[in-house]
């Protein structure tokens, strides 16, 4: 087995992981798994960087993205209700859903079904679930009976939980078209190839470059980070004086 063949094998498996996990991020219902998939994609990219003799960049890639993604994941868990375990992951299975949406929740197509008399009840039914959290932990989806839902309730729930907007088909088309366009351009352009391998120690050279030729860019990036920190803190700061509780969350806490 030649070293070239091994390199090909490693390349193919890493590329496969990077692409599949990136696609998986968009598809999965579970926020935590989505973040983790993205992390895996980045780590696979770091592997590709090592194949490209860019060890320093691989290390930077892992450092920047694993920590950053973990924080991102936590925000997603916080904002999009993914309280752990297989709950979100197994939801589709538990609901016995079929059709093209079998992988992720999508915005239902077509007009909403007519409203029933008890159409308002669904919000109450959901708040019931919030209130009765008494188990020592854990979430059991089996007691959520999907069969008893009316079409209207089902529709509302689908709208509530959809991961994608209604323009998903167009998005897929655009994504494919842009990728294809890029591929065609890549193949048609004659790239000037150099048949040599890098010899110098990247960390030393990059360090010297950063502090000589790209000094201004380096300092600019530092300034940008400072501005970013200040901006993020300012945006995310809790304003204790004027707290606005949205009416819907107020209702949710009330006893039915």
């Amino acid at each position, binding site marked *: 087995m030649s070293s070239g063949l091994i390199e090909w094998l490693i390349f193919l498996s890493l590329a496969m992981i990077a692409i599949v996990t990136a696609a998986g991020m968009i598809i999965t219902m*579970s926020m*935590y*798994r989505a973040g*983790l998939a993205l*992390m895996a994609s980045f*780590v696979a990219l770091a592997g590709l960087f090592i194949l490209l003799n860019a*060890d*320093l960049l691989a*290390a*930077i890639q*892992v*450092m920047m993205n*694993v*920590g950053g993604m*973990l*924080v991102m*994941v*936590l925000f997603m*868990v916080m904002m999009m209700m993914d*309280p*752990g*375990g*297989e*709950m979100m*992951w197994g939801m589709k299975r538990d609901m016995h859903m079929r059709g093209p949406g079998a992988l992720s929740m999508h915005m239902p197509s077509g007009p909403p079904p007519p409203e029933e008399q008890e159409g308002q009840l669904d919000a109450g039914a959901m708040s019931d679930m919030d209130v009765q959290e008494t188990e*020592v*932990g*854990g*979430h*059991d989806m089996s007691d959520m009976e999907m069969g008893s839902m009316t079409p209207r309730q089902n529709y509302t729930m689908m709208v509530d939980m959809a991961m994608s907007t209604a323009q998903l088909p167009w998005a897929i088309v655009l994504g494919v078209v842009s990728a294809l366009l890029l591929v065609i351009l890549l193949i048609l352009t004659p790239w000037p190839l150099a048949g040599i391998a890098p010899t110098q*120690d*990247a*960390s*030393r050279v990059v360090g010297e470059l950063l502090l000589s030729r790209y000094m201004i860019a380096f300092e600019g990036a530092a300034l940008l980070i400072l501005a970013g920190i200040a901006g993020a803190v300012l945006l995310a700061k809790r304003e204790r004086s004027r707290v606005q509780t949205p009416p819907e969350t107020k209702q949710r806490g009330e006893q039915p």
Partner: protein
Amino acid sequence: MSVFITPLFVVCVLLVGTYFIAVIEQLLRLGLRSIGIALTLPLANAIRLLYQEDLTPRGADFFLFRSAPFIALAVVSLVALVIPLGPTLIAFNPSIGLFYFIVLLSPFVVAITNAAWSQNSKEGLFATFRAAAYLISYEVPIGFAAIGPVMATQSLSTQRIVEVQAGLWFVVWQPLGLAIYLIAALFVSFRHPFDSALAGSELEGGAFAEYSGGRLLLFKIALAALFLLLMAMGVVLFFGGWQGPVLPGPLWFALKTFALSALVLWLAHFFPRLRHDQMLTLSWKILLPASLLNITLVGILTLTIPVGR
């Protein structure tokens, strides 16, 4: 052939080192007199865990739950590659060895958060958040503390850092860096005063609450190995690694590592478990300014005193 022998060797060394860390822990708990028990108890514990059933709780994220201990162990084994045991005894010697070491610490936290999150309980969710908060807090001080020796060496290679310390250990003129490094190392390895993500009391076991049997054993090995590796890196950075008279290099290295581990564990046992917000305060308000101060001092010393080179 060496592609297969090197990892095997690294894993064996790690397991032996982990065993000695467990022995040191038992000795600190039971007292020096019961050394016989301390030597055998870790093995008896491990055997006991191996005989136990390996449960997956109902409603757990099957894939993440089952894979988390292996991720942890894989990360630890990868980290171990860059530790120089002797003048030529190093599995992998890249030019950015130290950077590689610090970078690979964060995937370990991912393994812990996976374990905590996948177990389908609220306590686990709390543990996830805590572990992630610690990841952000310790990455900065441990990196800054490690920069001190790098400044003096002008290289990120672990082997080079050890070679430079032939005359004078860095601990002599960077004691502040060592202190910051050791505290941050306790943070990273979820050790006693900083173990509230895995705490027994309020989160009912935290991240490992649902693990049993073999997988729990794997996690415990991974945690102890991580602590061992951090202490080993501490020896590399501040105590001259394998440098020493008379005895062969690897032996010196082992002696220094276990002595440092014992010292750190002994100091840590004087403190009660800290609350999570106290830990974060310690990191951001004390360790971070102190490490900046350390870098300034080391910079001045490196430039003025020739012994720093």
